[in-house]
């Protein structure tokens, strides 16, 4: 998966991270949090919902257009976590 610059502060600068069978986006966030404590709360809120101005893309599809946090992730999928363009 590919991480935006503002999240790389928590991944020791790593731009890409390989994850193993996260299942869905909720699992992906949990796996990321285990490896990089503090990153999860930036992606999802207290109830595990993807934050309003954060987009999680599975390949080229925004997960909001799929099944949000329950969107399945399969071997080989490329995940991008990107902030929304807000304003302007």
């Amino acid at each position, binding site marked *: 998966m590919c991480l935006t610059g*503002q999240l790389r502060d928590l991944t020791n600068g790593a731009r890409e991270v390989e994850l193993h069978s996260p299942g869905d986006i909720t699992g992906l966030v949990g796996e990321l949090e285990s490896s990089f404590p503090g990153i999860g709360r930036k992606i999802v*809120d207290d109830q595990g919902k993807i934050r309003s101005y*954060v987009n999680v893309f599975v390949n080229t599809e925004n997960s909001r257009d799929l099944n949000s946090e329950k969107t399945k992730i399969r071997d080989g999928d490329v995940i991008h976590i990107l902030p*929304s363009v807000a304003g302007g």
Partner: protein
Amino acid sequence: MARGKGGVCLMVGTRKGAFVFTSKDGRRQWKASGPHLKGNEIHHMAYDRRTGKILAAISSGHWGPTIAESGDLGGDWKVSKTPPKFPKGSGLSVARVWQMAPGSEDEPDVLYAGVEPACLFRSEDYGKSWNVNDALLNHKTRKKWTPGGGGLNLHTILLDPRDPRKMHIAISAVGTMYTKDGGASWKFQNKDVLADFSPVKYPVYGQCTHKLATNPSDPDVIFQQNHCGVYRSDDSGENWVDIRNNLPSRFGFPVAVDANESKRAYVAPMEGDFSRIPPGGHFAVWGTDNAGKEWFALDSGLPDKSYFLVLRDGMVTDQEDPCGIYFGTSTGQLYASRDRGEHWANVADTLPPVLSVSVSAL
């Protein structure tokens, strides 16, 4: 008399980061640093005299809210990876941390955080973990709480310096609440406080309290700036009296109390409640020497014309003698008075919009 023998530290939270100003010459000159935590909204900062750390309530529009601390007056910051968080199943998520409050001297690792949606969190390990206040989270009236213009937020935490189990809090637009058992139970304290936007003009709760302030040496006397008036309680919040009297407006956000005279208080009136600009286009801090019977304008050194707003955490008093007063504006000015508001000096003129101003002796 300077109580802050090591100087005075002024902490300014803005929409785009934190600024720290320090003075070591009796508050005549200020050395600025910042922006720290650049790009984040800084809703409130508090200097913890127990540890010498600045605590900051921060939020990013994208990445959510958290808390940060600095042990060197803003040089380096440690951003919390475990900020206050509502329990799973509550359906709530912290949108902002509005207020930080260090615990008492007797509880050196205790911190409090007031959040939106309104609730109180307590940490007993200096922010490594946080516990939600169950009595507020599950309060029997909670479903009827409604937000003010700034959201449903717990924005004021007043600890009683005589007893750490006693605390006043204020929520917009719920009103003032009080605990004397460390937060196990809460009592509304809104007697005779007007809510004229409500069909019931003097409800038990539902008031839009904007800010509470007290002098720690006389903690039973509390001043309140409310959406619908300015109030004072002489009995720790049990009863309130309307003290707007000759103020140019009943509306405003902050209230502060003089460090040396508990009957001397300061407010920042605004035309209420839809325009929210200074009355007549002229901003003044208004002071009282007699607990609100009469008010007078303190505007020497302030602009003749001004259309800015001072938010609820935008004005504070220090603990020096004579008392200093500080306020920051929605248009990025920071003003200071080192003589109880008699004269004002511009400390900064081009900051981002100011959300909060805090001060401490060093």
